[in-house]
């Protein structure tokens, strides 16, 4: 097949490239998605326990949700969900060719971090019982 584009130089030492914010947000979109996928059984189990009627299940639910390790995992998942959510909306706009330019893309990446981290803090403090 005929080469359509000029061969470009490849430099894939990822640790040596200073990634733009949008690239970091992008890889975190993948990472957060993978984390949510891996923790699905925990989340479905919690849903099941939260709706259970037997006293045994209700006791289990109370014990599980009061466990610090579970709360920390949930805190991580809250961040993962919020980042994935905000970044997903950003990607939907980019699909519609909105905010594709370099500056706009950088600004929206900043907004993704700003919004998702702020909401993680708000929900996280609630989750850890601070208020």
């Amino acid at each position, binding site marked *: 097949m005929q080469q359509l584009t000029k061969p470009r130089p490849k430099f894939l030492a990822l640790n040596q490239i200073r990634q733009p914010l949008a690239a970091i947000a992008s890889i975190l979109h*993948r990472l957060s*998605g*993978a984390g*949510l*996928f891996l923790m*699905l*059984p925990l989340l*479905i189990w919690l*849903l*099941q326990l*939260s*709706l259970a*009627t037997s006293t045994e299940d*209700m006791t289990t639910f109370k014990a599980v949700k009061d466990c610090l390790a579970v709360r920390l995992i949930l805190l991580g998942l809250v961040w993962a969900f919020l980042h994935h*959510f905000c970044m*997903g*909306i950003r990607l*939907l706009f980019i*699909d519609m060719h909105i905010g594709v330019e370099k500056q706009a893309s950088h600004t929206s990446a900043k907004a993704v971090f700003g919004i998702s981290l702020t909401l993680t803090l708000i929900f996280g403090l609630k989750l850890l019982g601070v208020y």
Partner: protein
Amino acid sequence: MNRIVVGAHYGLKDWLAQRITAVVMAAYTLIVLAAVMGGATSSQEAWRAFMSHGLIRFFTFLFIVSLCYHAWVGVRDIWMDYIKPTGIRLFLHALTLLALIGYAGWAIQIIWRL
């Protein structure tokens, strides 16, 4: 014949499904968030009543199906990007698909039992 494995439809259908399921899940998230702020989790009875409401059950079902389809496309893309040996990749694809089908059944059973 010279076959191109990544032919027409294959990619576009999943790309589109990824977006549609994302919108469904985002809408559901806002509905549940609004309900929680309105007191749907104030007690276990309130939570059970909310989740067993006919319309909410319908949306929860759509959410579960959307989530599994969305996760399938996303996780499959991860395997396609990083796992090169065909055998291992096929195994991981099958494992992912089977897990997601199982999760969907489990989650739907939880809300349908209410």
